[in-house]
């Protein structure tokens, strides 16, 4: 095992967490273990980021720290943990909560109070804090998590980023010595993510607070003191971010997303120790190596974009002056004009609550315009039912668990064609084809609920595909998946697009948009603020940030050079290597 934890500022005797030979096996697990003989020490004041592919054991580890495992979730538990002198396995979770606070990914289920203030004091109340002190705590926490002025707001009216910040605040209010966040940014837009990491950075200035964040956003992990990579319940890397994040090939082999800038220079043959990590350092290296972008090759890319646009068919979705006002008077869309043509692959971007989901729900008639019109496959949606419009357009919802209900994968995928009244042979044929398209052949008789999130997501896609709609809408198809699963999902969607389906995706994952979408529409506060070819939209770094979006590192780096590349491969393709020294 590669381990340079020695190189860290890891003063002996300052450990706040000591884990020795920890193994855990969930009741449902046979053979494999969620954690396998894991040993880890974390010192006071450290900011540790834990990374790893899906099901590596990251959340299991977090839940062991405050005793949710084995007290709340049962299973076979071996080994020993010591958190600030206590053994979480032997204490009540409530007791551990005083020392270690846990924040979860799902902020919707974590918040339950009538207003922000009461949410923050729930923890302190449990620990019998006097009221006068609580008032001081509220004021302080609101500052820390940047929610000042929102004390009387109902949590459900906050944006996603604000909700997660409130969840963090409600844990900080207990004043724990260790805070552990389990994928806190997964459901957030890029700027919401940044807000969380900003808080993490500020918290880290308190040298007594130990911070552990489980995260798969590699770009944000740069700020940490230490990165621990877990795979199959074991620690496989442990060291400073600057060291660990340079291991581009190792990250790829694990199915984790490597940083794009070092990946680019790795492909150019730069030695590992010399790899720059961020766009600014990348720019310096680019100059140092005397690299240039070949205008001709870049021209080819732009030319290809234009040719692709020529190949589109007739307009298939047309929006004219689309407005939508909800029953409570909230105007979510304020006049949107858009035309989507047959064969396009368009990404709808926007911050949490921008109105992008409201927009796409108009495409299949789930919502009807309160003003303006929407024409889909030649049908005015106001004149037709969802059932009719739905024949030509499928919609995969964000959470596969919101639609899966059958005992078997076969029945789930057959549901839609059955409702559409096809013969049983036709249904059989369609199910086979749909499962083949999502690469899930042979799973027909499996119970969909026992599959992984990535697999359930694929079943959800198959169950829409089986109706053979011309247009497919996918809402956040990659959220909650690890990098490898995200790649698989996007390759699948790309294949569908190439076989003739028009694709509309709603997403926050910016690299996915950069690499896969042909066109981009940015929605901000109910208006379409940017629209065009992906390359043209991503050229405007600053304007994206205004819409609370942030382009991937490789795009930023190429923007410095004035030649917007959308992926590492594109950038490599345009790089003239004659001047480089190996």
């Amino acid at each position, binding site marked *: 095992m590669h381990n340079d934890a020695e190189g860290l500022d890891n003063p002996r005797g300052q450990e706040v967490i000591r884990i020795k030979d920890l193994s855990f096996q969930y009741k449902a697990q046979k053979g494999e273990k969620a954690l396998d003989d894991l040993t880890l020490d974390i010192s006071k004041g450290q900011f540790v980021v834990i990374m790893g592919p899906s099901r590596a054991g990251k959340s299991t580890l977090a*839940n062991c720290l*405050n005793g*949710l495992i084995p007290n*709340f979730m049962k299973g076979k538990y071996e080994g020993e943990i010591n958190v600030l002198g206590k053994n979480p396995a032997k204490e*009540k*979770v*409530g*007791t551990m*909560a*005083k020392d270690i*606070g*846990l924040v*979860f990914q*799902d902020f*919707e*289920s*974590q918040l*339950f*109070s*009538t*207003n922000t*203030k*009461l949410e923050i*004091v*729930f*923890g*302190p*109340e*449990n*620990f*019998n804090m006097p*009221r006068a002190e*609580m008032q001081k705590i509220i004021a302080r926490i609101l500052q820390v998590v940047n929610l000042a002025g929102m004390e009387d707001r*109902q949590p*459900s*009216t906050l944006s996603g980023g604000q909700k997660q910040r409130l*969840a963090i605040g*409600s*844990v900080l209010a*207990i004043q724990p010595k260790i805070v552990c966040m389990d994928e806190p940014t997964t459901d957030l837009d890029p700027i919401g993510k940044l807000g969380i990491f900003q808080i993490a950075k500020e918290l880290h200035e308190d040298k007594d607070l130990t911070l552990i964040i489980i995260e798969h956003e590699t770009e944000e992990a740069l700020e940490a003191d230490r990165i621990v990579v877990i795979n199959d319940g074991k620690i496989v890397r442990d060291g400073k971010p600057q060291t660990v994040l340079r291991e581009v090939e190792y990250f790829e082999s694990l199915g984790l997303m490597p940083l794009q800038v070092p990946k680019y220079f790795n492909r150019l043959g730069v030695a590992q120790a010399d790899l720059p990590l961020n766009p600014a350092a990348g720019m310096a290296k680019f100059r140092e190596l005397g690299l240039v972008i070949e205008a001709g090759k870049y021209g080819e890319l732009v030319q290809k974009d234009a040719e692709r646009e020529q190949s589109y068919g007739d307009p298939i979705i047309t929006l004219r002056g689309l407005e939508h006002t909800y029953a409570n008077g909230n105007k979510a869309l304020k006049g949107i004009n858009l035309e989507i043509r047959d064969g396009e692959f368009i990404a709808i971007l926007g911050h949490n609550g921008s109105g992008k989901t409201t927009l796409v*729900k108009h495409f*299949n008639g*789930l919502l009807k315009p309160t003003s303006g019109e929407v024409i889909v496959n030649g049908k005015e949606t106001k004149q037709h*039912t*969802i*059932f009719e419009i*739905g*024949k030509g357009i499928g*919609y995969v*919802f964000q*959470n596969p*668990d*919101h*639609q*899966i*209900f059958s005992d078997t994968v076969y029945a789930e995928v057959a*549901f839609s064609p059955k*409702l559409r009244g096809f013969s049983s042979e036709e249904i059989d044929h369609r199910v086979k084809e749909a499962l083949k398209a999502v690469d899930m052949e042979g799973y027909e008789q499996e119970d969909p609920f026992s599959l992984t999130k990535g697999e359930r997501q694929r079943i959800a896609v198959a169950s*829409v595909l089986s*109706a053979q709609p011309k247009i497919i809408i996918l809402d956040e198809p990659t959220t909650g998946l690890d990098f490898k699963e995200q790649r698989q999902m996007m390759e699948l969607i790309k294949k569908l697009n190439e076989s003739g389906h028009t694709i509309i995706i709603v997403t926050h994952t910016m690299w996915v948009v950069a690499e896969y979408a042909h066109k981009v529409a940015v929605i901000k506060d109910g208006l379409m603020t940017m629209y065009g070819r992906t390359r043209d939209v991503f050229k405007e770094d600053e304007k994206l940030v205004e819409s609370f979006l942030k382009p991937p590192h490789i795009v930023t780096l190429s923007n410095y050079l004035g030649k917007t590349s959308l992926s590492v491969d594109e950038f490599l393709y345009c790089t003239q290597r004659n001047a480089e020294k190996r």
Partner: protein
Amino acid sequence: MDMFLYMDKDTYMHRLDPRTKTFMMLGSFAIIAMFYTLTPLMVISALVILYGASGKTLPNLKRIRVVLMMIGLFSLVIWSFAKPGATPVLGPISWEGIIYGVAMAIKIDTMIIAGMIFLSSTKMEEIPVGWVRLKIPYRVAFAFSTALRLVPTIVGTSYIITQAQESRGLDLQSGNLLVRAKKYIPLLIPVFVSVIRGTNVFAMALESKGFGYSDKRSNYLETGYNKADIILLTVLVLLLALSIYLKITTKL
């Protein structure tokens, strides 16, 4: 979408002790339960509505107007047929039956309105605070207020799930009752699964914030009986006494 029943307003009623509001609700229930005839029920109903208006809680009734109307209509129809009387109107329907139906409609609707006034003016967090002072165990009171909290969450989730299944071609508008009932299976299963998963995270979050750390718990919300509480409780006791007296002495 706002699905919480609580209305965040600054009225004397919102500032009442949660115990007072609980007693007001239970007292209304008791008085309503005593009477079966139109006149007293109309008087009680007017009082309850007056009480609700004084706390600016009545706009919330708009949200349950369909329920209120359906119950009223059902009661009227059923009792008109079921209650025989001396004055026939049409076929088996008698004038007495109609009056009784109206009375029952008012009775049930007024109870619902009294409950609604309580929920519109009482923060979820106040319920356990008040009830603990009435010697109800904290966990029981908290479970009750959590159940209330879950309602909007479940409604929100079912809304998304309905949309997801409608997008797949589930047509909930057509078919006879049996066919339609079967159509709800694709809605119910995902709702249950999602709620159970959500509740699990909720429970973990509760534990992680020290829920159940000790029986001694402090409260941020300040409660206590004030002048308004005393006046209202006195009025309630008098009304209860009057009702009992009327119930015993007259045949209302």
